[in-house]
């Protein structure tokens, strides 16, 4: 096919340009704007390296951007739509077309500001609004799944939702445990809401709330932990026990997975080396000391006021934080990280506060948590400089505050590497999308909504969804999450010494199983304009009408392809890929009124493509 074919012409999608001159003006303005923007970023980067991180306070940036935007806003966009889409692919559960239009008329900073100020869409609120709850809180398992997916799908506060989702894969609790608790999804939703509430707060607060959380206490067995030599409960009473040594479960995982990791790190996330060897950041002895710190905690009783003791709780509450019982706290002195000692005879509360301060102030936290979040949002193999810039913001948000997650996520998304890595380091930048995020992006991109007259997002068909997709929130196999941050699959990635954590979920079997899940949703669950449904097997419907409007001639789906390209691939579709799509589109297969099927079939091909598995 010759290059002059119409589909090779760029389809801006957002702007109806009338003359060559207008194009030039817009091009020029954009160039000028991006220069201005780039210099802002350069300033940010440069001062970060000078160890004096600037405040990311949007108040300082917004006026400049507003000035730059002045005339542009009437022309329909200051941010390239492709770049807006790419930004939203990184920071949400997938863009809808309207999100792209909105951001292209705004700026990243203004978008972040508006996301930060949106009310929190909570999963428990959603659940309670659904009248599902006949035997609260023992609501059925499927309702818990529905609440999570529904909120993630529709919540306006998408960045907060993505942040909580990332945090749920760092501070992991899982319903994949084989005893009663997994059948009480409301408790897990309550934990998820805790992550939502603290997503833009301070890491230190989050760490404390997670530590005291009842579901975490259950999952990593911190509850009922007691000092060596303690009889817990009356001897011979069911469930009572004598402690030879405190439980080390939470002590170990809070250090290894939630805060500092196994080895000492430089600011840029690379391991500190001593004669070429890594240096452990703690020892078995450290774990034993922290295990003693975390003694004396158990669930609150469901009664108000508390009437029962450490062992005898009555009916425990799992939606209130755990509380301390000093009679069951190890009162001895302890030695924490960096040989910091804490005194004897402190209460459980004091010890816990001191220990979490000790963890929080360890120099590893910034690079460790910063790099994990970069990997979740932007790229699997960030340059050490990128990690250092983000860790610097973690260490000080510019106002002397350590652990400001709002500043951290802004630094991650606005960093020059996040914004330009796809151009400056195309073969190193990017990541595999998680299967669950691919599925959400498919739903959002094609305007999925719940069917009316039905109050549940999922149906019986969706029961197999999780097992085929290999991933669902709060269902990791263990506290080590669905995948490990240092996973590198055999083949081109490990040959290039590159990590691809999310690809641990993808093997020769699951790659087909996951794709089939996407496809079945697409093929079964569209709304073919007349509101008659191809299948009643789900309560989720796509709305293809706005896409159908792009097909003026069924022979020429170019405009439709560009729209799908913009939404699902951030406009990155290659000419070769476009050619393959145009070739497989066979107009003779469709009646004129079957435009919806053209949309579904072309979307299907893009959603299945390996190109859609990758985020750039």
């Amino acid at each position, binding site marked *: 096919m010759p290059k002059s074919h119409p589909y090779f012409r760029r389809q801006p999608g957002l702007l109806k340009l009338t003359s060559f001159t207008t194009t030039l003006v817009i091009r020029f303005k954009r160039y000028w704007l991006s220069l201005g923007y780039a210099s802002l970023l350069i300033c940010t980067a440069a001062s970060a390296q000078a160890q004096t991180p600037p405040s990311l306070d949007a108040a300082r940036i917004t006026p400049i951007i507003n000035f730059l935007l002045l005339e542009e806003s009437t022309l329909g966009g200051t941010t390239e739509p492709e770049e807006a889409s790419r930004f939203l692919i990184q920071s949400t559960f997938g863009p809808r077309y309207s999100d792209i239009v909105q951001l292209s008329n705004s700026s990243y900073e203004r978008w972040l500001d508006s996301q930060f100020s949106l009310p929190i869409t909570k999963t428990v609120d959603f659940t309670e609004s659904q009248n599902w709850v006949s035997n609260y809180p023992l609501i059925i398992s499927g309702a818990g799944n529905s609440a999570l997916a529904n909120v993630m799908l529709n919540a306006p506060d998408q960045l907060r939702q993505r942040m909580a989702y990332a945090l749920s894969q760092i501070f992991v609790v899982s319903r994949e445990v084989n005893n009663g608790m997994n059948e009480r999804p409301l408790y897990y939703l309550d934990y998820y809401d805790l992550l939502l509430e603290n997503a833009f707060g301070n890491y230190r607060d989050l760490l404390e709330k997670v530590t005291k959380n009842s579901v975490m206490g259950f999952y990593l067995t911190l509850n009922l932990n007691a000092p060596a030599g303690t009889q817990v409960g009356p001897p011979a009473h069911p*469930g*009572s026990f*004598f402690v*030879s040594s405190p439980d080390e479960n939470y002590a170990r995982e809070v250090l290894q997975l939630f805060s500092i990791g196994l080895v000492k790190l430089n600011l840029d996330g690379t391991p500190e080396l001593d004669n070429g060897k890594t240096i452990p950041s703690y020892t078995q002895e450290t774990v034993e000391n922290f295990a003693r710190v975390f003694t004396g905690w158990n669930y609150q009783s469901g009664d108000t006021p508390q009437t029962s003791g450490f062992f005898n709780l009555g009916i425990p509450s799992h939606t209130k934080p755990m509380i301390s019982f000093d009679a069951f706290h190890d009162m001895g002195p302890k030695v924490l990280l960096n040989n910091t000692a804490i005194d004897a005879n402190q209460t459980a509360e004091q010890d816990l506060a001191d220990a979490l301060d000790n963890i929080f102030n360890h120099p590893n936290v910034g690079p460790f948590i910063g790099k994990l979040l970069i990997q979740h949002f932007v790229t699997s193999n960030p340059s050490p400089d990128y990690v250092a810039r983000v860790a610097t913001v973690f260490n000080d948000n510019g106002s002397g505050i350590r652990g400001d997650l709002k500043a951290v996520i802004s630094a991650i998304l606005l960093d020059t590497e996040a914004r330009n890595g796809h151009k400056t380091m195309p073969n190193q930048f990017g990541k595999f999308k998680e299967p669950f995020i691919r599925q959400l992006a498919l739903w959002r991109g094609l305007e999925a909504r719940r069917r009316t007259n039905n109050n549940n997002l999922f149906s019986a068909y969706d029961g197999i969804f999780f097992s085929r997709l290999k991933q669902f929130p709060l269902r990791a196999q*263990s506290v080590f999450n669905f995948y490990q941050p240092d996973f590198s699959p055999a083949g081109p*990635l490990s040959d290039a010494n590159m990590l691809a954590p999310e690809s641990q979920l993808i093997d020769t079997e699951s790659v087909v199983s996951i794709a089939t899940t996407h496809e079945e949703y697409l093929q079964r669950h569209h709304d073919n304009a007349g509101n008659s449904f191809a299948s009643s097997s789900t309560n989720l419907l796509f709305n293809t009408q706005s896409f159908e409007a792009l097909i003026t001639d069924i022979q020429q789906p170019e405009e439709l392809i560009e729209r799908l390209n913009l939404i699902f691939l951030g406009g990155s579709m290659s000419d*070769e890929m476009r050619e393959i799509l145009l070739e497989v589109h066979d107009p003779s297969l469709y009646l004129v009124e079957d435009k919806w099927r053209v949309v579904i079939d072309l979307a299907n091909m893009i959603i299945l*493509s*390996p190109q859609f598995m990758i985020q750039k």
Partner: protein
Amino acid sequence: MTDRRNFLKLSAFSIGSLGLFDGLGNQALAATSPDDYKSLVVVNLNGGNDSLNMLIPNTDTEYQQYATARPQIAFNKSDLLPISPIEMSANSFALSPRMSAMRELFNDGDLSFVANVGSLIGPITKEAFLDPLRTQPRPSGLGGHNTQTAYWQADHSNQIDTTKDGWGGRLANEFISNAVLPSNISINSGHNILQSHASERFYNVSLNGLISLRDFRNDQTNPAIRARRNALNSLNNLAANSADPFLKHAGQLFSEGLNLNLALQNSLSSITQDLSSRFSDSVSFSGGAFSAGLARIAELILIRQQLGMRRQIFFVQLAGFDTHSKHAENHGNLSEDLSNHLKAFNDIITENDQLRNSVLTVTTSEFGRNLASNGDGTDHAWGAQHMVMGGPVDGGKIFGTFPSLELDGADDYNGLGRMIPTLSVSQYGATVAKWFGVEDENLERVFPNLQNYQGSDRDIGFIS
């Protein structure tokens, strides 16, 4: 090392033509005769199995040490199931009351225990381990689930791991296979370190059955379907030829997955027996996935000839062994599931004369747990006892040296009963690899740390 076969080299257009898999082998190794079939089943007890509550010393002093160190967790002596290991005193050991099926197998000579196995670079004494200068090499990250899983499944020879190879992948790589399926089969466990290898593939068998894209189901002649199939293949090809390693990996993997999926649609349809009912007598506490996995392994072994398999390595997991809490209930239930389901599996295999001596099952687990309890659970430790099962096993024995159960005694390194292993993963695995058909001089390719063991130390002896 010879890498004979690389699925990735097959183009996206070789779909369904099994013939392409033939003739790629270039070196005749052990697996030559059609009757030469061996299958290794690795049962991973995920979470760190507390083997001290499975195999328990039944002599007075040792039992007392056990019972005193873990008061709420220890079984009553009268509830234990005594065993008399060959070459040891009568009733000197006992099994958990939940593991009567394993006692039966032990007494029938189809099961042995291997004592105090763990992640080690080479032999290490307590004195050397506690030496503050740490001159004697030892695994890093002791007590970490992921780090110790890596040692167990990869047998790293150095502290900073740079290889992503596991010994299952390396073991398969010692043999030629022209079969449709890779030699390594992961049962519902996806990627695992054991079966990772740069050129040796694994295939995950999902318990959901084989799931296929609508256009990739059997042979399709409909032109529209063929066109869509070709388009997806072209997209995969485009990605696989990209300079971007992410895209390249995605395209290669998807091509390979679609090829295998099509090929297996025919092969797996030759499974005629549903063996899951053989496991139904067992009480299942673990949600049924473990017994379903073992049933699927047995089904696949029974159709080995249709699949053209000569050597197979299955990886299946029973999860939930991280019993920091509620140990008595949870570990007891897991023990019973493990025991009953392994016995059911072994019964299916051993009643088939051709298979009886061709299938070996071994347990792995990232670490054992400490002898002292934390109250209602136990914490991460190091060395542990393991089970080896099947016709090839010299059964009814305990191999190695059972650790002293004295707290702060000869084997405990910090007073809470964390045992320093006296047998290494490399010795344990090399004994298996030798049975599988690897010559002694090649064993170190599969188990690098075996270089630190000489002579009779290179074979624990549990194969008859």
